[in-house]
């Protein structure tokens, strides 16, 4: 007799076997804070543009490879941009253009570029 517990997301890891706990405390970087700050502002009472629930749906649905290969805050950033594009708040093209401009600016200042 097999219990069917229904669909299971790749994020739903409670009870899985796993290795020893990596007891480290990594620093919280500026871009990571910025991700959380923007998400919080976009979800606040005056805007309600994207909620934490939508961001969660975002990283729960962008695929197991992406989920397993991105850092926690990068997952949040990717999920947030996915949802903003899905909802038509920003377009891929606008974001790509802004990213390209950003990369060009970094290249100006990067002695290794």
């Amino acid at each position, binding site marked *: 007799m097999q*219990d*069917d*517990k*229904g*669909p*299971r997301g790749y994020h*739903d890891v*409670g*009870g899985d076997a796993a290795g020893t706990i990596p007891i480290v405390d990594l620093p919280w970087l500026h871009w990571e804070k910025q991700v959380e700050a923007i998400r919080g502002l976009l979800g606040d009472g005056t805007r*309600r543009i994207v*909620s934490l*629930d*939508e961001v*969660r*749906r975002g990283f*729960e*649905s962008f695929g197991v490879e992406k989920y397993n290969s991105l850092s926690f805050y990068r997952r949040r950033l990717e999920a947030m941009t996915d949802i903003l594009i899905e*909802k038509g708040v920003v377009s891929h093209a606008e974001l790509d253009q802004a990213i390209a401009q950003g990369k060009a600016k970094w290249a100006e200042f990067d002695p290794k570029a």
Partner: protein
Amino acid sequence: MKRFSDGDCVKVLALGKEGHVRIPHYVRNQIGHIAGYCGTYLNPEDLAVGNTSGQAVDLYRVAFEQRQLWPNQPIPKHDMLVIEIYDHWLAPAQETSDAP
């Protein structure tokens, strides 16, 4: 009128829902007891798709014996797991007899 009171025996349903749910796999189909009432909250299953006008749902804390969740493990019988379950994922249940 909330359906459950503290101490009620309940089962967590396996609703088979796709998409964003907040009920982990490991508690589905498990039987536990109501350990507290949290109030009413908007359903994350609605919020995840941008629906903020859904019905608010009763949220309960449900306690499980850890040894029931993970059979055949040497777990002390008093160790518990408590988790929050939304009303629509719960059904009344019968007490199960203790495994020997």
